[in-house]
C-alpha cells in the first residue's frame, strides 16, 4: 500500500482537494463550488477523491482557505495554514524560480513576491471585491454569457472598451452605459478583463516590485482574456500552470507531508453528521457570537469568544472531568 497526502483548499466560492504522492505529484484532484456550505462541499470532495484512488493510505491532512479552521477541526487536520503561505509553497513546487505570484480567486486576490525560494513580501486585497472572480461572474450573468466563455470572447476583441476600474459600482454603471450606446459585447468583455487587471495592479500590486518570472493562478487564471491583459500591462510572459486553480491545496498537502503524524486518515466521514450551532454569549455587552462545532452529539471545538467568560470548550471539559 502506498502513502498519499491530502490537501484541501476551502474557499468562499470554490472548494478544491488534491491527494499527492511522496514526489509531490497530484494523483487525485477535485474542484467544486462551495455554495455556502463548506462542510457538505468537503464531504463531497472527499468521497470523490476516495473513488479516484486505489490502495493508497492517507498519512496526513492539511487545510487552507477561509474555512480552514472549521474543516481542520472536522477532519482532525495535521496542518491548518493560511492561503498565502500555502499558495507560495504550492507554486514553488511547480515553478522553483518564480519571483512573482499573481493570484485571483473568488473573493480575494493577492500578490506574493519571492526571492530565492522565500516569500519576501505579499499583499492581499482589503476592503474591495473589485477585480476578483465573483465580480467577473456577476458581470458575465449581466451580459448573458457563461463565465467560462469569457476569456475566448475577450480574445476576439480588436478594440477593447475602456471601463472604469476603480470600483465595482463604477465599473458596473460604466459597463451598462457603454453597452447601451452600442459598444460590442466582445469589446466590453475585453474591457472588463483589462479593468480587473488594472484594478489588481493598482490596488494589490501597488508599490510592489514585480519581477519575472511571473506565475498567475487562482480561478480567474483560467480566463485567457485576463492572462492577455496581464501580459499587455506588465510586458512580460505570464506562466499559467494547468493546475493553477489547485496551487493552494497542493501547497497545504506538501506542508501536511512535512508534518505527518503516524495515523491513517479515515475516508468514511460521509455518514458522520457534523454540525455547527451558533449562539450569542450574553455574559457581557460585547455579545460574542460563539460557534460550537459538533461531531454527532459531541462538542469537538468552539470559537468566537473574546475572553474567558465565553470559553465553552473549557467549561465542557471541566464538566466532563
Amino acid at each position, binding site marked *: 500500500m502506498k502513502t498519499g497526502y491530502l490537501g484541501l483548499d476551502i474557499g468562499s466560492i470554490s472548494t478544491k482537494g488534491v491527494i499527492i504522492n511522496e514526489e509531490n505529484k497530484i494523483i487525485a484532484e477535485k474542484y467544486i463550488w462551495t455554495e455556502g456550505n463548506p462542510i457538505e462541499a468537503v464531504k463531497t470532495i472527499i468521497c470523490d477523491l476516495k473513488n479516484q484512488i486505489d490502495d493508497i493510505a492517507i498519512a496526513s491532512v492539511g487545510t487552507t482557505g477561509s474555512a480552514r479552521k472549521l474543516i481542520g477541526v472536522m477532519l482532525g487536520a495535521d496542518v491548518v*495554514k493560511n492561503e*498565502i503561505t500555502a499558495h507560495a509553497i504550492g507554486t514553488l513546487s511547480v515553478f522553483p524560480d518564480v519571483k512573482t505570484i499573481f493570484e485571483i480567486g473568488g473573493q480575494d486576490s493577492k500578490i506574493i513576491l519571492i526571492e530565492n525560494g522565500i516569500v*519576501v513580501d505579499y499583499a492581499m486585497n*482589503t*476592503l474591495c471585491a473589485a477585480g476578483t472572480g465573483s465580480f467577473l461572474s456577476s458581470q458575465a450573468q449581466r451580459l448573458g454569457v457563461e463565465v467560462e466563455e469569457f476569456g475566448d470572447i475577450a480574445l476576439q476583441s480588436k478594440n477593447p472598451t475602456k471601463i472604469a476600474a476603480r470600483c465595482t459600482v463604477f465599473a458596473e454603471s460604466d459597463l451598462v452605459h457603454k453597452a447601451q450606446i452600442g459598444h460590442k459585447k466582445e469589446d466590453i468583455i475585453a474591457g472588463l478583463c483589462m479593468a480587473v487587471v488594472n484594478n489588481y495592479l493598482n490596488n494589490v500590486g*501597488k*508599490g510592489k516590485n514585480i519581477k519575472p518570472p511571473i506565475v498567475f493562478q487562482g480561478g480567474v487564471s483560467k480566463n485567457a482574456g485576463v492572462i492577455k491583459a496581464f501580459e499587455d500591462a506588465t510586458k512580460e510572459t505570464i506562466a499559467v500552470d494547468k493546475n493553477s486553480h489547485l496551487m493552494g491545496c497542493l501547497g497545504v498537502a506538501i506542508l501536511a507531508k512535512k508534518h505527518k503524524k503516524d495515523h491513517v486518515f479515515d475516508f468514511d466521514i460521509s455518514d458522520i453528521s457534523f454540525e455547527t450551532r451558533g449562539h450569542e454569549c450574553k455574559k457581557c455587552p*460585547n*455579545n*460574542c457570537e460563539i460557534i460550537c462545532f459538533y461531531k454527532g452529539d459531541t462538542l469537538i471545538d468552539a470559537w468566537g469568544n473574546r475572553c474567558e467568560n465565553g470559553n465553552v470548550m473549557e467549561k465542557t471539559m471541566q464538566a466532563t472531568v
Partner: protein
Amino acid sequence: MEKIISFPHMGNYFVPVEALLRLIFPGHKVLPAPAITKKTLELGSKHSPDFVCVPFKYNLGNYIEALEKGANVLIQAGGGCRYGYYAEIQEQILRDMGYEFQFIKLLSDKINPISLYKTVREIGTPISFHKFLGHLVLIIKMVRIIDDTEAFIRENIGFETEENSFRDLHREFLNRLKTVTALSELNTVHREYDKRFRELSINKPENCLKVGLVGELYTLMEPFSNFFIEKELAKNNIQVSRYITVTFLLFDKFRRRKQILKGAGKYLKYEIGADGTDSVERGRTLAKMGYDGLIHIKPFGCMPEVNAMPMLQNISKDFKIPVLYFSFDSQTSETGVKTRLEAFHDMLTMRKDG
C-alpha cells in the same frame, strides 16, 4: 445638580485620567465610559457619518453609553487632523439625539496649565491653582510610568514562561495606580512593580523576531480597534515595539519636532500632517535598527497616514523590510486580520531562517 464627569476610552489611559479627575473634582462624581464592546461600536456607528474615521465612532459610542449611565459632563480633546473637528460634531450629534450635558473641549493649540485651570474652575472645583498643578504633575508622571511599563510588557510578553503572568501583574499594577495620590507614593509603586516585572521569568532568544508598529494614534493605542494585534503578535513569540504613546504625543513630539523630520531622512522634506511624519521617521529608524518587519495601521480614510504610505513603501524597498498595511473600520473582518498576521509571521520566520 450633581455633576457626573465622563470621558471616552483609549487603551489603559482611563486609569490616570480617572485619577486626575477624582483629585481635581472632589465634589463631583467621575464615571469613565463603560468598557468598549461591540455594542459601543454599533451605537457609535449608527449615529456617526458613514465615512468618518473609526475613532470618532468609538468615542461617540463611549459618550452614548456614559450618558445612559447618567453622565452629564463630557470631555473631548482635539488634534491636528479630522480629530480637531470631533468635539464640535459629536456635541451636535448628541444634542440632536436629545441628551442634555456640558461638553468640555480641550483643543491642543490652546492647552497650557493656566487655560486648563480656567476650564476646571468653570466646571467647578474648590482647589487652588497650586494644588491643581501638583495633581497635574503627578498624573503626567503616572502616564509616563504606564507607558514605560507597557513598552517593557510589549517587548517581553511573547516570551513569558508562565502563561498570563504578565497580564495578571499588569492588571494588578493598574489597580494599584488607581489609589495613588502623591508623588512619593507613585515612585514607590513604580519601583516595586518595575522590579516585579523584570523578575517575571521569560525565555527570550537573542535573535527573536522583532516587529515595529507605526501608524495612527487611536488605532495603535486602543487594542479593541485593532483586533488586539499586539496580543496576536505576542502569541507568535514576537517582540513588539511601538513608540506612539500619550507621553510621546503630549511632550516628546513637540520637543523633537525638528529631529523627527530630520529623522525621516530623504523620505520627507516637509511634514505631512498629524502623525504621518512620525510614522515615516519611526519606520526608517526601526528598519535601520534591523527590525524584521513593520506593521502600519490606520483607520480607513485617515489622510495623514495615507500620506505616509508611499514613503513607507520606499523604505520597504530600500531596507528590504516587509511592511503589512491595515485599515480598520467598524466592519473589518477579524478572520481577514488573522489570516494576514499569520502569513506575515510565516514570511518573517522563512526570511529569518533563510
